[in-house]
């Protein structure tokens, strides 16, 4: 029983969160922050599979989030919304169909990852980074030019699905799905990467030639690894679209990809627990720095010298966070965890969880 302590605590925490949201103990704002943390955990852990575990450098992860978001949005509007005519499915089936819609979005994103994984057979490092940026731009431009999806005006109508769920049972449904998918993501990645099959990914990272000679089918493992990463990012995108109720191609541009990259490098390459921790820290930082009062206090020495300067939180945020990354890279270049898991840093902790 002792070795499941942490797992049970996590489940209790998740259920507590849902109850608190249901009985309005925590307000909508906190709920949004928690859901953003969940989505960011999905993004950072999935990108960590490629950039950390496999040692490739891709910076177009938002492209897959975008594909997942659009596919699941369109499907959900088709099934439960009114934009494209009458809903295809009865509203009561939404509770079962919604996760399937998200998974389909993820699956399409996974297939689209072939755009990056096939070139990765021949190229590495900088060249693959350029390819991944190209894929990011391709996806955004393609969707911007699809008028039936709203083009650059964006696409909406997903709230119908959320309301259909609320009609079935009045509860914090999106929080429920985000918690479930976040746990599913971390669990699936952990299982994949801790199996001998998944350790082939680490072998490719450490010595690709040796991996190929030692019977690892490097091309296949690369495809699978990219697919898992992109698929989970696609699920994250679907959730994001349904939380906001509106998607716009520009919200998945290179800045979004960079956010995911920052989380991975902040947490430490190849460390699953590092990616989770940095996603939490990063999201909380973003929220804290959104407050004008805090920015004013932080910059009071500067505003004292330049009294005419009125820093705005929305802008300064994007100065502070890259600065944080520079500081972390300067003083702890391996990131917070640095290729180790929480259990390696605190061996005693291992007694309290079993996460397989």
């Amino acid at each position: 029983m002792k070795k499941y302590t942490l797992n049970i605590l996590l489940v209790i925490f998740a259920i507590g969160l849902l109850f608190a949201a249901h009985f309005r103990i925590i307000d909508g704002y906190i709920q949004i922050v928690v859901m953003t943390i969940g989505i960011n955990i999905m993004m950072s852990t999935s990108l960590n599979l490629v950039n950390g575990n496999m040692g490739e450098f891709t910076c177009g992860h938002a492209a897959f989030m975008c594909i997942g978001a659009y596919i699941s949005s369109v499907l959900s509007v088709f099934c439960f919304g009114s934009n494209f005519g009458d809903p295809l499915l009865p509203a009561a089936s939404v509770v079962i169909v919604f996760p399937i819609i998200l998974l389909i979005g993820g699956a399409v994103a996974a297939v689209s990852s072939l755009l990056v994984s096939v070139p990765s057979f021949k190229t590495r490092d900088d060249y693959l980074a350029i390819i991944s940026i190209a894929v990011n731009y391709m996806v955004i431009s393609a969707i911007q030019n699809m008028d039936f999806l709203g083009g650059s005006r964006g696409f909406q109508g997903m709230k119908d699905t959320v309301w259909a769920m609320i009609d079935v049972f009045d509860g914090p449904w999106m929080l429920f799905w985000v918690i479930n998918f976040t746990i599913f993501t971390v669990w699936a990645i952990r299982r994949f990467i801790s199996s001998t099959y998944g350790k082939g990914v680490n072998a490719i990272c450490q010595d690709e030639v040796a991996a190929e000679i030692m019977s690892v089918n490097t091309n296949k493992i690369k495809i699978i690894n990219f697919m898992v990463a992109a698929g989970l990012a696609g699920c994250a995108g679907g959730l994001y679209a349904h939380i906001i109720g509106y998607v716009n191609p520009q919200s998945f541009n290179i800045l979004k990809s960079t956010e995911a990259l920052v989380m991975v490098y902040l947490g430490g390459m190849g460390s699953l627990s590092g990616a989770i921790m940095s996603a939490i820290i990063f999201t909380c930082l973003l929220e804290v720095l959104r407050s004008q009062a805090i920015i004013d206090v932080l910059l009071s020495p500067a505003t004292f010298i330049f009294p005419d300067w009125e820093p705005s939180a929305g802008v300064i945020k994007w100065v502070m966070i890259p600065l944080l990354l520079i500081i972390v890279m300067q003083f702890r270049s391996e990131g917070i965890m640095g290729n180790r898991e929480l259990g390696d840093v605190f061996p005693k902790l291992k007694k309290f969880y079993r996460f397989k």
Partner: protein
Amino acid sequence: MAQTQIQTEQTPVLEIRSLTQRFGGLTAVNDFNVKLMPGELSGLIGPNGAGKTTVFNLASGFYQPTEGQILVDGIPTAGLKPHKVTTLGMARTFQNIRLWNDMTVLDNIRVAQHSQLGYGFFHAITRSKRYRAREEQITKEAEELLDVFDLKRYAEELPKNLPYGTQRKLEIARALSSHPKLLLLDEPAAGLNSADAKDLIRLIRWIHETFDVTIWMIEHHMDVMMELCTQIKVIDFGETIAEGSAEHVRNHPAVMTAYLGDDNI
């Protein structure tokens, strides 16, 4: 029935027929032939840059030959990726050690059995019955292998923290973990002192006897070669200049010229 059995027994583990490899204008290997019968322990020597490692890279499928044919256990390897060639029963080590340095010693051995896992992605995710059975067996085999190689106490260490000689040994153990029929050793004694080299001779002989494997090795230490190999082939500038027993090769005039230079100048 009896006849087919004799025939399969006579299939060479590795057969290379008139192999030629050109890199641009450079002919790295020219018309190279070799036939390794099961249980053989033979060597390939030659001065630096003679094309020895190129032959190994060709044999393990790392390069596709310009001309010629390579058969592993009777199966032509043309067009096969290196991991497929490995699956045919070949394993190799590298001149400069290529272990996975951030994986434990045990994982190094386990991952080398990747082609024989027998389960895929969804088995790994669902931790199916087959996954558990195979994983258990792989771990058991890896531990046994580490045990016979006297490396078990390092199982949870990272290879980069091990002494150089132990890393060499581990690389050979990793190559053997995929149950190969043919083991290619690329300069296993490189960087070892004479005491370690003696251990290595004992180790290779012991592997040859215990694991029932054909060994083909490249080596610069002539004493290692003389002691171990029944057949030695000498190449220089991609051309085969001599072959035969250790004694024959040692006194061959072409070999002397290749190594020591021509005294007629």
